[in-house]
């Protein structure tokens, strides 16, 4: 089946198997490999993308349901060579180690900061609760989100 949607500001139209996952369309068809596959069970959040303003696991998202949606992946955050303030904050705070969870974490932070200008510690923990990091221990990630919130 053919589906059309907007991804990172660009309209695309792709042929998909009816049961295909949005994750595979993003990575294999569109070549946007910033979105990672971790657990394939919706437990790690590495595959998180933003669909119509909400965070979802693209490994559990039927590609056929992406018709007409507006999608943002990590590649959609930077403006040319200029990285997004949240990405900058992650770098400045040392919130990236192996980096595999980072795209999902940054997008989770983006959804939070789009909705709340001054999130509390609890807000941050909750917003990032669907994203696992096995390297940093979360403190630096939380600090990065706080820093990004302050800079807005």
């Amino acid at each position, binding site marked *: 089946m053919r589906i059309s949607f907007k991804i990172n500001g660009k309209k695309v139209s792709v042929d998909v198997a009816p049961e295909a996952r949005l994750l595979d369309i993003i990575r294999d068809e569109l070549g946007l490999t910033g979105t990672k596959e971790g657990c394939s069970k919706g437990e790690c959040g590495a595959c*998180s993308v933003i669909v119509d303003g909400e965070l979802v696991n693209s490994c559990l998202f039927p590609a056929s349901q992406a018709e007409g949606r507006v999608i943002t992946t990590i590649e959609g955050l930077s403006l040319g060579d200029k990285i997004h303030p949240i990405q900058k904050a992650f770098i400045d705070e040392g919130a990236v180690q192996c980096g595999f969870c980072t795209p999902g974490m940054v997008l989770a932070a983006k959804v939070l900061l789009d909705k709340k200008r001054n999130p509390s510690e609890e807000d941050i923990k909750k917003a990032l609760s669907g994203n696992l990091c096995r390297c940093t221990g979360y403190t630096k990630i939380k600090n990065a989100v706080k820093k990004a919130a302050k800079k807005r």
Partner: protein
Amino acid sequence: MKKFIKVSRLAALGRIKEECVFLAGGTDIYVALNDGALACATLCDISPLKTLDGIKLKGKNISVGALTTFASIAKSAVIKKYAACLAEAAQEVGSPQIRNRATIGGNVANGSPSGDSIPALYVLKALIKTNRRSVAVEQFFTGPKRTVLKKNELITEILIPRKKTVSSFMKIGARKALAISKVSAAAALDIRGGIITEASIAFGAVGPTVIRCGKTGEFLTGKKLSGNVIAKASQIAAGEICPIDDCRSSAKYRRECAAVILTRILRNN
């Protein structure tokens, strides 16, 4: 996968010959697909049935459409006001990503004894409506992951009587987010002039289906919520459940935790 169907009208379901697995948000179905299960299944995508999405007041009931997501339920003013335990349970499901996609209809149809919405629906005395009939929530589940749903019977809405009950939900998992409940509990109390006139208590993940604790409810009825009453009620409840040892927890731990979370719920009221 054998075949993929998308329906845009409820009436179209009747014309489908093969047995379908219904697909809504995909948070259970795609885990199974990713695992290689459902290889021979016919998937029927019901997400275009927009009339099944949303929360409305309907006479003396609250109607929650089967396609309503847990994110919507958790933030609904109507649910918070009349069915607080369901709002609390919705907030505890999976993660933000899961709550944005997972539907209440899917949680019920999946029929897991640890499904977080189910103890809440028990104590709220919800009615499960399908495209063919209405079934009281307590009659809906027949075992772990087994329900009364027949071939291609679809849950369409959940009706919750609009009452002035105080209700609350609590769960214990290995961690706060993304943890299937080791034990969960919901309680709904009618309190008039400090006296409990009706009490409904249910536990999840401590039996083949969610379990209602009738004796605990009877014990609480006519009493005031004192420390002693709460302690005794929690003890009775721990005797009414039938937990097992499995990959997530032990029967002993579940029984102890059941008493602890009921105590916490009742103390908060």
